[in-house]
């Protein structure tokens, strides 16, 4: 029995191989080595939530009707029965109340959308703080920034589809942001909306954007992202046996396939649990979009929140030029600021390379503490973003914590300029402190937990010297090695006894005990990267 199946598979494989000569490629792929560090799986959360979005989105497509045509709702949600509304809103109600499994599909779709963008952001944070974006991986960094921006766009388009009161309010804000751009703004928004806001066309157009255009580009970019990753191979943290020329970890087949496949189901499980337990976007309570209505606490989904916050924080500036009013209070926070933020994000790898004059290839990752300037810049930017994000919800915060709304705006304006530099300084100190404690370990050894009492009555703890084999040397920001006193070794190579004490959530692992040459390796990387 087993031999027969084996024969059948072997025969099939031979058939394919004789025509596509793919055996070599498949063998190499199956033996490809993936690093084991947990932080390498965050990107997978994004990938898997995208797959979940495609699957649930197709189900929603079967029942959703993206037209602005007015209909009289006649479904089973009582408070809206007999109320005139757009076909788009009516079909969303239909999905929620009258399609079998419709509500949970909508909720899974929406939770997966939130998770998709969140995991992209966290993934990007790990790439940034470990320096994985450095040469030769700048292109994949740029693709990543593109994926994130498209993710925001995709989410915003989807959020606007049901044509409910909240999303209509969001679209109106987008419309006025578009109009604030001098010269081209009025005409391009007019073109996009097919006339004045809201018009009849925008829902249909957003639908094309949401189910065809952006998902198509996303799919293409994700493919390119993965192919480049495959070709360039993963980065890895420093460790025994790990060099710029190899990758240490588990093979694609069977370990990594099992791991990744299992993880897909974990992601699916978390999203499905959220979709089944927690109500999201209850459009039936928002009501159909009506330009004369507005709800308190009308917010966009979280990933657009930073824009909402920057609009709320901006003082009411306007200038008049050439007979036109330029609403700086919308133009700057709504267009200029996000332009600068995403621009800097995209350019960061090139800026860092230029400022540090680093033209080398890098396949080994930095620990955040060893690059205090980069780490502090990252924390500083995240703080800036975080303040904007929180301010996007300042009315809800004011309401729940009973503080004055005006006070929160004022605090936000101050915090936006004060907190980021403060966080820079704090992060910098923490990095240096961590470097010092690494250095301490190197010089004085590892704490053993054994306490001795000296004849004088003093207590001391016995420290065991670090084994050479456990030692991981990390290059530290070349500008500041002098901050660490009592150097051992060359100045640019201040030592960090990372793996000796276990670090970054990884307990002392088998890495340290298994001789380097017995670990699985990606063989073809040994000769050529």
């Amino acid at each position, binding site marked *: 029995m087993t031999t027969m199946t084996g024969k059948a598979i072997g025969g099939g494989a031979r058939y394919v191989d004789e025509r596509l000569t793919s055996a070599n490629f498949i063998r190499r792929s199956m033996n490809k080595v993936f690093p*084991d560090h947990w*932080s390498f*799986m965050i990107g997978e959360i994004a990938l898997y939530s995208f797959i979940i979005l495609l699957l649930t989105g197709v189900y929603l497509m079967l029942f959703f009707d993206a037209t602005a045509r007015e209909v009289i709702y006649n479904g089973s949600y009582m408070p809206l029965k007999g109320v005139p509304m757009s076909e788009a809103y009516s079909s969303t109600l239909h999905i929620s109340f009258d399609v079998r499994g419709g509500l949970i599909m909508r909720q899974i779709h929406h939770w997966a959308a939130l998770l998709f963008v969140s995991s992209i952001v966290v993934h990007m944070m790990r790439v940034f703080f470990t320096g994985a974006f450095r040469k030769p991986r700048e292109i994949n960094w740029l693709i990543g920034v593109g994926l994130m921006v498209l993710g925001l766009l995709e989410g915003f388009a989807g959020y606007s589809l049901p044509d409910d009161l909240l999303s209509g309010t969001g679209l109106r804000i987008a419309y006025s942001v578009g109009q604030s751009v001098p010269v081209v703004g009025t005409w391009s928004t007019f073109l996009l909306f097919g006339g004045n806001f809201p018009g009849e066309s925008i829902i249909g157009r957003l639908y094309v954007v949401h189910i065809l255009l952006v998902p198509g580009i996303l799919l293409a970019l994700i493919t390119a992202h993965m192919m480049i990753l495959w070709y360039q191979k993963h980065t890895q943290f420093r460790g025994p046996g790990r060099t710029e020329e190899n990758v240490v970890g588990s093979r694609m087949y069977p370990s990594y396939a099992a791991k990744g496949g299992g993880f897909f189901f974990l992601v699916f499980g978390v999203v499905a649990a959220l979709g089944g337990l927690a*109500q999201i976007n209850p459009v039936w309570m928002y009501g159909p979009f009506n330009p004369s209505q507005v709800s308190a606490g009308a917010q966009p989904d*979280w990933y657009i929140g930073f824009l909402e916050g920057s609009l709320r924080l901006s003082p009411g500036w306007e200038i008049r030029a050439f007979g036109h009013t330029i609403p700086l209070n919308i133009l700057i926070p709504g267009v200029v600021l996000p332009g600068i933020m995403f621009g800097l994000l995209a350019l960061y790898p090139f800026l860092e390379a230029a400022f540090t004059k680093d033209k080398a290839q890098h396949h080994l990752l930095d620990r955040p503490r060893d690059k205090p300037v980069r780490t502090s810049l990252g924390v500083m930017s995240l703080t800036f973003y975080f303040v904007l994000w929180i301010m996007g919800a300042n009315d809800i915060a004011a309401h729940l914590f009973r503080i004055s709304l005006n006070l929160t705006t004022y605090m936000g304006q101050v915090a936006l300029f004060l907190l980021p530099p403060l966080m820079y300084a704090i992060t910098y100190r923490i990095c240096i402190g961590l470097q010092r404690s690494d250095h301490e370990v190197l010089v004085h050894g590892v704490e053993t937990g054994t306490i001795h009492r000296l004849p004088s009555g003093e207590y001391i703890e016995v420290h065991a010297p670090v084994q050479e084999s456990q030692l991981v040397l990390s290059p530290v920001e070349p500008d500041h090695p002098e901050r660490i006193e009592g150097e051992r070794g060359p100045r640019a190579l201040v030592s960090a006894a990372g793996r000796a004490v276990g670090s970054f959530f990884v307990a002392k692992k088998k890495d340290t005990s298994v001789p380097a040459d017995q670990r699985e390796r990606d063989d073809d990387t040994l000769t050529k990267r």
Partner: protein
Amino acid sequence: MTSTAAGFAAAGRRRRKLASYAVLLTALVVLGVTYAVLAPRGHAASTAEESFAVQKGRELFQTSCATCHGINAQGTQEAPSLIGVGAAAVDFQVSSGRMPLARPGPQADRKEAKYDRAQIDQMAAYVASLAPGPQIPQVDLADGDLQLGGNLFRTNCASCHNFAGSGGALTYGKYAPRLTPATPVQVAEAIRTGPENMPVFGPSTFDDHQVNSIVKYVDYVTRSKNPGGLALGKFGPVPEGLVIAVVGIPALLAMTLWIGARA
């Protein structure tokens, strides 16, 4: 439908019916009292009743309200005059525990009521006897139209109280409260008297049918079940984003750590 489910549904209907009877009954009693108070003089029995209620009301008022509102409710530096605010304002303010005001602040908060039904009616009768004003509205939920109420609510109330009556911040520490604890009569009273920073919606804005409809919708939207699961406070996308940030992402990161440690 199984028989138990039908039984539950019937019981629910009965309870709702009972509740609306109770509301109706209260409204009738209140109406009777107010009528008695406001009815033209010369009716010996009602005058006696009236003067009794007004008498008791004045006593209560003078012990616990006069320090702020003045000995004849004419108003002081601390608090506005109550002449002409009507029984509805007194009933709303006292039955929702806002009055007697505990401490000055940007706004009077809702609290446990300090007086029982009879005492509130007496104080309302006293204030109503000073000058005509809005009477305690009669709410008839059966007359309300849910769809009309929803639309009126979204047009006139959601901008402060949020789409589901979850409340929202106004400027300088003032806020529109969550509507869940308000009884149907209090909702109607709030509409008619416009407490503090809320606008007054008088009979020229909404007729009684419209008020009944709004009250019915508020009752529905604050008490209805949530078909999607946990309602997350009915504040829209902000708590949803928070759930992803504090539940979704941490749960998945914990799983990556677990898998990573197992490699």
